[in-house]
């Protein structure tokens, strides 16, 4: 056999050659379709040095392991061995994470449209291809669960359900921040906060919980996803280091990073906290969500990353971070979970009641938990049987908190809840509620961003629950059994007739809260506009606020504003109020 020469090319030298592919345009300048307030230095550094000759076989090998794992899981009988409580919550989790992957990919596209530094573009692009891989793998996982797990109802129409679900549509709202608006702010949301801070929780800590519940195929898939995230985190850091070179960007970074942090925290913490703790049957985990959060978010991200930015001139006040943790300590996800469980008829997965074993675990991890929440969970379990003929939602709805205009989840921390009134597109005052002053700040400083028929219950106000269930097609193929159920028992499933018998009328907490407080209408539903009263009018869009006075655009889409303008843009019209 002939001697095979296997000289290995230097990745650095290869990358140096590939980096020569960029050139200064002489005949036509690129035309961006997105706008940024940031300015860019001449030099940047690509930390990834990804070359297709190495990248493609590496990813193929990783793919082989994941797809091979699907087959292995089937042969090992995982579908019937994994815990069903856990398998149920995979329905919303996987599908919203597929949206997140698409958001991350599209984030790369918008960032590439405005970043002029050739050195960074290759890394961004490779990330977009990674995200296509993640979508394929995770939809492959969804397909596997659909075909093989014990009760697939919900998976079968999952994308349709997910897009208009009370909980996951708030996730769509949050992840959309990473590819809508200023591309660099979007990039911080995805690369600096979602990927650098939260993927360790979602793609490392969560798969650990999956494995404890017998679901090793979820762990196999997400571990493979996470193996790409290190490169994506590098992209975020390279972006940060690039824009940091320009002093005029610093107030923008400070502003955008705080806002990115808040919107991600506001949805991810209650959602992942609830998923991890309220859908795990296995109670061998010594770490609560809060402990994991401290390890991955506080220590690994905030202290090791955000605080270190201070050395480079970016001072991020600790308030936003401290406030998020305080909300977790105050029970953000413990207060959100019962509301989510109470809305089970409107969801596309089953919610298994907690047991004594669960109570003990929660009490051990969060002393005082039982006194505060135990009775609610006992009531939930007692009403899970359709024979009882009553819904916990009935009791909840009368005193339910309104939903936050910005993050779209319930305003569960009483002391934080606030509101403001704004005119709708017809000039009539309406009330917007916020779960926190921070969410109010996001809305006030980003006019035009938060659109659509946002308050989930407004359009169903006064309708019977059964009518809403039918409208959302939340029945199984037999035409009578609900997709969502308040327990796992296949013999005692709720039907649409049971719901009708319970005779329950939906009331929007936003409408009832505003009325109780003597405020202008809390409804933002507009019968004449299926997408809500704020759609299409830009919601009072004022370019002055977002684009630093709107002055000095060079026509090429890149802002040329002065320092004063940018500083004003950084805080908007409503400066951050320290609590």
């Amino acid at each position, binding site marked *: 056999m002939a001697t095979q020469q296997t000289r290995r090319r230097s990745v650095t030298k*290869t990358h140096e*050659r590939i980096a020569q592919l960029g050139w200064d345009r002489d005949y036509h300048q690129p035309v961006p379709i997105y706008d940024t307030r940031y300015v860019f230095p001449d030099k940047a550094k690509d930390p990834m040095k990804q070359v297709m000759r190495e990248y*493609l076989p590496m990813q193929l090998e990783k793919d082989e392991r994941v797809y091979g794992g699907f087959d292995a899981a089937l042969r090992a009988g995982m579908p019937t061995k994994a815990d069903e409580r856990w398998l149920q919550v995979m329905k919303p989790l996987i599908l919203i994470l597929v949206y997140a992957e698409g958001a991350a990919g599209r984030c790369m596209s918008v960032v590439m449209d405005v970043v002029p530094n050739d050195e960074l*573009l290759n890394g961004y692009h490779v990330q977009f291809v990674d995200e296509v891989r993640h979508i394929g793998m995770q*939809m492959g996982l969804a397909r596997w669960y659909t075909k093989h797990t014990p009760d697939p109802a919900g998976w079968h129409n999952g994308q*349709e359900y997910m897009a208009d679900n009370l909980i996951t549509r708030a996730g769509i709202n949050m992840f959309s921040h990473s590819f*809508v608006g200023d591309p660099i702010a979007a990039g911080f949301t995805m690369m600096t906060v979602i990927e650098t801070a939260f993927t360790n929780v979602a793609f490392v800590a969560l798969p650990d919980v999956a494995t404890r519940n017998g679901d090793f195929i979820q762990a196999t898939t997400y571990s493979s996803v996470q193996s790409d995230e290190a490169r994506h985190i590098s992209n975020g850091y390279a972006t940060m280091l690039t824009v940091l070179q320009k002093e005029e960007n610093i107030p923008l970074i400070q502003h955008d990073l705080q806002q990115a942090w808040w919107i991600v925290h506001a949805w991810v913490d209650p959602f992942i906290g609830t998923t991890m703790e309220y859908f795990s049957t296995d109670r061998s985990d010594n770490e609560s969500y809060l402990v994991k959060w401290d390890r991955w978010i506080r220590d690994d991200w905030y202290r090791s990353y955000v605080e270190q930015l201070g050395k480079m001139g970016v001072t991020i006040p600790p308030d936003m971070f401290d406030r998020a943790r305080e909300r977790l300590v105050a029970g953000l996800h413990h207060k959100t979970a019962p509301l989510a469980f109470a809305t089970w008829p409107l969801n596309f997965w089953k919610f298994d009641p907690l047991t004594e074993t669960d109570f003990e675990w929660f009490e051990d991890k969060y002393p005082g938990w039982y006194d505060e929440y135990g009775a609610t969970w006992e009531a939930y379990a007692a009403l899970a049987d359709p024979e009882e003929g009553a819904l916990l939602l009935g009791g909840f709805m009368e005193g339910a908190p309104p939903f936050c205009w910005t993050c779209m989840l319930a305003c569960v921390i009483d002391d934080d809840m606030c509101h403001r009134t704004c005119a709708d597109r017809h000039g009539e005052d309406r009330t917007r509620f916020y779960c926190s002053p921070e969410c109010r700040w996001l809305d006030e400083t980003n006019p035009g961003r938060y659109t659509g028929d946002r308050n989930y219950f407004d359009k169903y106000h006064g309708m019977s629950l059964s009518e809403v269930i039918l409208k959302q097609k939340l029945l199984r193929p037999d035409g009578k059994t609900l997709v969502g159920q308040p327990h796992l028992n296949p013999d005692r499933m709720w039907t649409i007739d049971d719901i009708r018998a319970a005779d329950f009328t939906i009331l929007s907490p936003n409408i009832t809260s505003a009325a109780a407080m003597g405020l202008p209408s809390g409804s933002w539903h507009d019968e004449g506009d299926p997408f809500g009263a704020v759609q299409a009018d830009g919601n009072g869009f004022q370019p002055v606020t977002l684009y630093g006075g709107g002055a000095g655009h060079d026509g090429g889409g890149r802002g040329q504003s002065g320092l004063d303008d940018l500083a004003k843009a950084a805080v908007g019209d409503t400066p951050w109020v320290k609590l």
Partner: protein
Amino acid sequence: MAGEVRAGERRKRRGDDPERSFQWITPKGRKASLYEDVTVGTQPSVYTFLASGYTCSFPDGRGTWWDDSTGVDVVDWTVFRDPNELWERPYYQQGAQCEKEIENATRSARSEGLYADVDPAWVEFLRRDGQVQAFVEHGIWSIATRRSRAALADTLTHGIVLYAAVKQRQAQAFVIEGMDLDEDLGDFQIEAAKARWTGEPAWQDARRVVERLGTITDWGELIVVTGLVIEPLLGSLVRRELLLRGALRAADPLTPTIVRGAQRENAWWNDFALAFAQFGTEDEQHAAANRSLIASWLADWEPEALAAVDALEPIFAGAPGVDFAAARARVVADQQALVAAAGLVAADPVAAA
């Protein structure tokens, strides 16, 4: 009864149980393909499932997605399918296969001493212009990857992203070839290729049209122009007619492997663009307007692409064993056939010349 039970079980195992397949997909065939299962429905819109509108919008009033991101208008974007059903798994399989073939060709050329047989005039040509095509591929990549986000369906976004990905692979393959030849034969510098790209008059019309691609703001236009104009005319002229045919005649053991892989990918994109154009021109409500728009794009870009083709005649003249006139005739005929398949008419190549 027992038979009915067994039949029911079989149906469930086959996936006929409606709860065991994705009901949100309207399959193109009798049953949803794997490609459809993992792609369709991953990009919700106000037309598909976002019943309450876009919750996150641009300050200028654009929603998360916006209809006029392309001038092409169709009844339902979600019906579009890539005829070759490329998704991540086959993409990585095919891309890795291309790179493996190139690596093997490189090893073989070295271990079998094949470089000794290559026509010296061809080596000189490769030194001068062999890597310049990398700039064409890279230029297309840089706009494709930027326009992918605005596409109005997941199947379209995926296609554009993967097109950008194959362009980047092709660009890098030409550069790595130069790097390897530099080691084996000496004096294959990327800087010299860049100087040719930015300074050699014969390449300037190609550079001009590639730079102009960067001004495209309509993702539909990007698909049509790259797939039905730039790739079949300029791309195939350089890759197939110049580099592949020339290399085969010159006993070049490496370049044909690189180009064959690139042309396989090119065939995929031609199919994709053709399917896209047909999707627009056959739409039940907007066919006439789409036909007119796509025809205007063709009319706008074909003369410039043909000018770039014609300007490359001196480059062909510097390469042994290639015939520019025959090459031009072949790519023009192929492009006309492609455009005709979309129910449209290509520009008159003589008038353009």
